[in-house]
């Protein structure tokens, strides 16, 4: 009875509840961390500096968003090659396109990044869905291949980027991020999105209902690849050069952000907004801890602890909501 009574007021705001269900504790964490950051470091977080902040956060947000689609497809779907894709795009764009071939036109550079991402995504999708190698193993193969190749063509940091690309590392980084979100909003309006979520939550039922499970999952890897390509571009804009060591570091942190943002690693639950908020949380956390001059060691502990605590709380909240539904 008490459970029913408490469920009454929340059901009046279904939209809020839906967001809460979809993103877990990430928005609360976001508000708290933002408040802390503004309080301790008003200059860095003043409205005039937001552009810079967005630029700093953009690659991580991009990496998190990119990681989500493959995970949403379920049955162990995951792409751990997102970071290396970013690093590979970074190397190709700066080293080959800009430095060797002198091609600096935005159309070519953006087109190349998207194409590279799509091609690697298709390779991952082919291995994970058609060859049916377990996704973590298949993308581990891609991970090693890309990291190795990137290091071979680019043994040490080098190069510069054109002005237009450099400017995307600042306030204008909202453009590529916005573009990715627009694409995703477009995808959400397609039947494909429903298929992806259906496949992610119960692939057998989806298959019996006539959904082309293999194709749906394959495309989720391609989308992940394209988004990772764009994230690689954002990373290139931020660092303004080619650096083989930065890209791969994004993989695990992006997957953490996705989990933090309430995306179930079992598939079929969550969304890109949650992933993005999860990424911003991690960014704000890093930002706050760096301000206190804590060493990167403390940063690491705090980051691990918050990750574990947040997913534990999300799981407990799920149970609680589940019990409430059961009682109602």
């Amino acid at each position: 009875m008490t459970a029913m009574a408490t469920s009454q007021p929340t059901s009046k705001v279904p939209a809020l509840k839906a967001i809460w269900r979809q993103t877990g504790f990430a928005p609360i964490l976001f508000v708290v961390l933002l408040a802390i950051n503004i309080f301790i470091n008003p200059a860095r977080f003043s409205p005039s500096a937001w552009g810079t902040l967005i630029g700093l956060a953009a690659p991580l947000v991009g990496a998190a968003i990119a990681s989500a689609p493959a995970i949403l497809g379920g049955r162990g779907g995951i792409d751990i090659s997102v970071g290396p894709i970013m690093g590979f795009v970074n190397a190709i764009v700066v080293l080959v396109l800009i430095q060797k071939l002198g091609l600096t036109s935005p159309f070519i550079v953006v087109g190349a990044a998207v194409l590279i991402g799509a091609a690697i995504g298709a390779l991952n999708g082919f291995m994970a869905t058609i060859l049916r190698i377990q996704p973590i193993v298949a993308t581990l193969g891609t991970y090693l291949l890309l990291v190795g190749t990137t290091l071979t063509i680019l043994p040490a940091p080098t190069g510069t980027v054109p002005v237009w690309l450099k400017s995307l590392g600042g306030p204008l980084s909202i453009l590529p991020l916005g573009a990715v979100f627009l694409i995703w909003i477009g995808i959400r309006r397609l039947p494909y999105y429903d298929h992806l979520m259906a496949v992610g939550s119960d692939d057998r039922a989806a298959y019996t209902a006539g959904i082309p499970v293999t194709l749906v999952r394959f495309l989720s890897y391609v989308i992940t690849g394209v988004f990772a390509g764009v994230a690689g571009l954002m990373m290139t804009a931020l660092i303004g050069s080619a650096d083989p060591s930065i890209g791969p570091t994004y993989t695990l942190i992006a997957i953490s952000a996705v989990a933090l943002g309430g995306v179930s690693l079992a598939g079929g639950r969550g969304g890109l907004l949650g992933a993005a908020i999860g990424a911003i949380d991690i960014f704000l956390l890093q930002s706050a801890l760096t301000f206190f001059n804590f060493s990167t060691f403390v940063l690491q502990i705090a980051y691990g602890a918050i990750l574990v605590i947040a997913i534990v709380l999300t799981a407990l909240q799920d149970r609680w909501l589940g019990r409430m539904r059961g009682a109602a």
Partner: protein
Amino acid sequence: MTRLTSDQARVLGALIVAVALHLTGTALIEGYSSEFSMRAMLVLGSLLAIASIGQTLVVIIGGIDLSIPFVIGFANVVTAQLYGGGMNFALVCLIVVGLACLIGALNGLISSSLKLHPLIVTLGIGTIVQGSVLLWTGGFPSGSAPDSITEFVSIGGSVGFLPVPWLVPCFVALAAIVTVALARTAYGRRLFALGSNPRAAPLALIHPVAMWTATFAISAAFAAVTGILLLGFTGSAYGEVGQPYLFQTIAAVVIGGTALVGGRGSYLGTVAGALVLTEINTLLIGIGLQPSLVQAVLGVVIVVLVSFYGRDAHVRTTI
């Protein structure tokens, strides 16, 4: 002769690949089968195989353990630090392995009791562990390894007339123990059952949370053992020493035919997988590839090998 089961065929397949790689190496590279090179491969392969014991068990139960490299680094640094501080080495090992067990138990407990994906839990806990170690040592671990452990893993060591260090025969004995434990103990059979059908397991009197907690604790314990052995191998502590083992343990398990979906596999397969990885590494470096290219080729090889026998079932066959 009886027909091979598909599991046995996979182990045999991995072993054949290892032998083929070795023959290729011997044909292509001078000194590939020299005594020193063989000893080095045996030591490196043994270390990888010990680090992969836990990953094998965890994968059979249907999980994955990303905390192995962090626990290896933890054990490596803490052992050096404590031993360097004058503590008795046996006591140091006891403390380090005990703490590792607690870390692992926490991994398993959180993952199974809250039904959270172990990938993210072990990553989070691993990060905390690594951060704590770095914080404790200020990023510059000190201390040293006792001579006994250095000798135990030394490539130049020998056991009586055997031209290998004690590590190798000890590892062979350990591998036999693990294999027997998987096949002939209640724990081993329950491990496979739980991985095979988690919903049926409680009805067969299997306690999922207890099994996960114990298995992840065992995994961390062997990661700690690897960390201590690596301290002997390299001579000084290094927090990142475990990093190559993150993907290599998974690769060894998968190449050995243990399915990531749980319920099937063998430690013998993992040992074969560890041999394959060691052979590939030695071979590629031997023909003069840069470490970066070695990595790239390794990625391709893993995928190719697994696509031969590690493929999942199509969704239509699971209905």
